[in-house]
């Protein structure tokens, strides 16, 4: 067996280029003769745009052309990839999302004009000479105000600012309400899931290029899914057939969801390059990123949990307002619905659940998926309300959870919110979390904190998530306008080396290291014989990309299926050469042998024969050794886990310090434990950021108050502790070939409720009981809650 097969913490091969400054990110690419675009963006949230005077700007030095909305006649709007049907069977309201503001400005940061010039500074200088004639309109920012009858409309052509009113499962509503009527105890909690900005450290970049000799366009872009961009932009926006459009996403510096979506800037650069017959490059500044990258979360929720006299959960109902922003981003409508409502059972046997979501247009940047996408919102409200119920009932929050867990022997388990969990063992992860966090020893640490004049609290959360999105026929029924399979081509070269061309995209996840480990294990060769190619539509099969913790579960499965085809064909070749039946051929440690004999061939002998087919069954078998597989999963995967946070609070300042953090996850089988642990640590830091620091903030006029790192508090090294990570509890997925579940989002899902539960526990123990504090729990909020 290879020493670096499945389960080895193989060091990452991609690190070498990143550590020596040889990464090739999109902004590192400069094409000969390229021009630069600077986008003039609106600094008001809502206005009628009467005119744009470019007369002074267009003659400034270096200016090649200035584009406004009128230059895009015949160009489509940015499409939305998911149609939600509302409670009454009606389709959601879906306004046009133009590349540039068409007569009306709907959020700060919306593109109003674009200056293309020979240098970036020239483009910026000229943009300052553009004069906008606009009449400001009252902005709608607050979601509940936005759905009032007299609210200003973000889109005049729509009946209101309500995108959809979604009920799930609508047929259960009456039964859920009836269960609440007879409940022994009802816990009610209203909360906000704070608006966030994903903030991958690499800002977005797009370079459009046009080749007149074959009328083809190329877009270099910071994307998690280049094929999706090619399809959306080619088919819906610019009308370029896919065979004339190449999309390349080279090294991408983090995504976290915000680089899934198709953005106006990508379409602009591709369009302008063809118009000007020049490469056109755009590099986002961080300030632009804050007002143009799709934001995340931003839910306002009321959740109620009903319990019987024995503390069993009997029903759950939630009402959520979900902010869509001014336009529908690519997957925005799916996030508060199918990626949120279907997770409301959590780890529990709650038999009756009803979820209502009102999605609302406001004069803000569009909101879409951010690490976890709907699942953090579901987990936060559920794990908060369960904790609150435990406190109200005077029972241990861990034990209330344990009592209501779906039991190990109940899998597969169909929840009342339309999903079937294939495997899980929630008591195992709970017990592991309690053990590793030394839950039992908390009293000692509490006493030490008290002696130091500090408050101390412990909080836990037990999450479920649905990963490996998703069965295409199912999501099609739910409104997805795409399939959600993944693809891989495995090309075995004559001398035995392998190139895997995958539709998954790696932007920090380490696929170049972990994917070869799988192939190495299957064939019995070393991983360094396998190279991974991704991120270029010209040399990878149609793929759906990386998000929703789907790479190994869906992309990895496609690679396994293609490799199985390779092995099956290679066995036939070997059988021919060894004059045996292919049923008798065994592949082990890179060697084909005939069962029960000493006859064998090396991997390289067979691969060479495939390309030099002199002694080869040409009548029955094509030469060559290259196979493609598309894998469409039959279900989601369901990772779960127990997160336990311990905090200290300084009563003088209200500052919360994370003292200990434990994550005990069940990810099923694991390919590279080192990479998995890194994913969890990073996700937990983002969750701690949401809980304690980060907040995307608008004032009532729609001005974005948190538009730089001066105002948006990113977690720094001193804000997060060392994180204890465990993944020894493993209930492998039953429906994909690797038994994997996915690990990318868990940290960001499980950690915010654990942190908040810990903060409130500390305050409760100190005789300052507070029912709830909304995130981020800044020192000011904590101090105010304790002192008023």
């Amino acid at each position, binding site marked *: 067996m290879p020493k670096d097969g499945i389960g080895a913490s193989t060091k990452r091969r991609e690190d070498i280029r990143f550590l020596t*400054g040889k990464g090739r990110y999109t902004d590192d690419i400069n094409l000969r003769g390229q021009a630069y675009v600077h986008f003039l963006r609106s600094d008001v949230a809502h206005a009628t745009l009467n005119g744009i005077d470019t007369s002074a700007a267009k003659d400034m030095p270096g200016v090649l052309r200035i584009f406004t909305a009128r230059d895009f006649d015949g160009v489509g709007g940015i499409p939305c990839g998911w149609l939600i049907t509302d409670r009454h069977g009606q389709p959601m309201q879906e306004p046009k999302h133009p590349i540039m503001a068409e007569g009306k400005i709907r959020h700060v940061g919306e593109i109003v004009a674009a200056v293309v010039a020979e240098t970036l500074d020239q483009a910026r200088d000229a943009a300052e000479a553009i004069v906008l004639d606009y009449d400001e309109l009252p902005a709608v920012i607050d979601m509940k105000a936005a759905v009032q009858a007299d609210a200003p409309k973000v889109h005049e052509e729509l009946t209101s600012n309500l995108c959809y009113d979604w009920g799930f499962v609508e047929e259960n509503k009456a039964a859920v309400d009836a269960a609440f009527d007879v409940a022994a105890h009802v816990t009610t909690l209203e909360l906000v899931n704070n608006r966030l900005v994903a903030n991958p*450290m690499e800002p977005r970049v797009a370079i459009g290029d046009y080749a007149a000799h074959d009328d083809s366009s190329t877009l270099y872009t910071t994307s998690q899914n280049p094929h999706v961009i090619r399809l959306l932009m080619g088919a819906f926006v610019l009308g370029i057939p896919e065979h004339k459009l190449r999309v390349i996403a080279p090294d991408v510096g983090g995504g976290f969801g915000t680089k899934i979506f198709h953005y106006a800037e990508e379409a602009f650069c591709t369009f302008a390059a063809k118009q000007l017959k020049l490469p056109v490059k755009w590099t986002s500044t*961080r300030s632009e990123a804050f007002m143009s990258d799709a934001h995340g979360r931003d839910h306002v929720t009321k959740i109620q949990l009903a319990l019987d006299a024995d503390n069993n959960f009997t029903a759950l109902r939630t009402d959520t307002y979900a902010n869509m922003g001014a336009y529908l981003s690519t997957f925005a409508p799916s996030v508060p619905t199918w990626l949120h409502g279907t997770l409301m059972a959590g780890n529990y046997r709650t038999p009756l659940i009803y979820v209502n979501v009102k999605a609302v247009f406001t004069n803000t940047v569009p909101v879409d998926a951010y690490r976890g996408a709907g699942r953090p919102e579901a987990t936060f409200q559920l794990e908060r309300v369960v904790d609150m119920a435990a406190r109200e009932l005077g029972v241990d929050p861990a034990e209330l959870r344990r009592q209501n867990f779906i039991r190990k022997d109940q899998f597969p388990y169909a929840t009342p919110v339309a999903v079937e969990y294939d495997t899980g063992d929630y008591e195992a992860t709970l017990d592991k979390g309690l053990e590793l966090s030394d839950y039992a020893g908390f009293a000692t640490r509490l006493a030490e904190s008290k002696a130091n004049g500090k408050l101390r609290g412990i909080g836990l959360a037990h999450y479920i998530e649905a990963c490996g999105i998703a069965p295409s026929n199912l999501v099609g029924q739910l409104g997805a306008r795409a399939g959600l399979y993944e693809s891989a081509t495995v090309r075995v070269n004559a001398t035995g080396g392998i190139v895997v061309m995958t539709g998954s995209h790696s932007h920090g996840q380490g696929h170049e290291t972990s994917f070869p480990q799988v192939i190495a294990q299957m064939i019995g060769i070393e991983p360094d014989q396998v190279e991974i190619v991704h991120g270029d539509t010209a040399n990878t099969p149609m793929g759906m990309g990386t998000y929703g913790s789907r790479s190994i579960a869906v992309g990895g499965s496609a690679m396994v299926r293609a490799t199985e085809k390779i092995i099956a064909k290679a066995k036939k070749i070997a059988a021919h050469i060894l004059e045996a039946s292919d049923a008798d051929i065994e592949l082990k440690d890179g060697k084909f042998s005939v069962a029960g004999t000493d006859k064998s061939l090396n991997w390289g002998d067979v691969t060479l024969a495939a390309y030099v087919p002199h002694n080869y069954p040409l009548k029955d078998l094509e030469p060559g050794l290259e196979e493609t597989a598309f894998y469409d999963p039959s279900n989601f995967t369901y990772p779960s886990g127990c997160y336990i946070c311990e905090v200290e609070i300084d009563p003088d300042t209200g500052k919360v310090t994370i003292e200990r953090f434990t994550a005990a996850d069940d990810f099923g089988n694991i390919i590279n434990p080192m990479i998995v642990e*890194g994913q969890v640590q*990073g996700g937990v*830091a983002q969750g701690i950021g949401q809980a304690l620091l980060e907040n995307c903030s608008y004032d009532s006029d729609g001005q974005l108050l948190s538009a730089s790192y001066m105002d948006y508090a990113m977690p720094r*090294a*001193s804000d997060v502790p060392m994180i204890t990570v465990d993944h020894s509890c493993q209930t492998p997925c039953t429906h994909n070939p690797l038994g994997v579940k996915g690990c990318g989002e868990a940290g960001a899902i499980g950690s915010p409720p654990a942190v908040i539960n810990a903060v409130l526990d500390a305050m409760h123990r100190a005789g300052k009981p507070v029912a709830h504090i909304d995130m981020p729990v800044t020192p000011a909020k904590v101090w105010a809650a304790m002192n008023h």
Partner: protein
Amino acid sequence: MKVQMTVNCRQVSGEVEGRTLLVTFLRDGQGLTGTHTGCDTSQCGACTVHVNGQQVKSCTMFAVEAEGAEVATIEGMANADGSLSVLQQAFQDYHGLQCGFCTPGMVMAAASLLAKNPRPSEAEVRRHLEGNICRCTGYHNIVKAIMAASGQHVTAVAAE
């Protein structure tokens, strides 16, 4: 105007505007794209380089201010034979990077710390990284990598 400086022990020069930032000179003028720009408010540290031995955010300095200076970037951090330096190797060994975008700045900041404080405590490492933001790793493995590079005992990766 013309500017000249030493970058990674090599004499370089180029034409710049007064407003040209050092990071732009390095990336666009010299093709040293390992130094990254992650923000526009001098917060993220992806552009960290050394100027005359001092850790500097190259987005906060005009190229002309580096006239005659000794500049070191990530491209000059490997050993003479091209192998990874102890610090770079520790980042790989301890999985101190994921997407790699903040990494050059992290390595430059860490090198500066270790030059002044060869055996920093965990708290000192975290404090020194205040001006460098990483969104991927949660800093856990970056801190471990720097501690390990300083010769201190650190729990093996994937064994906690």
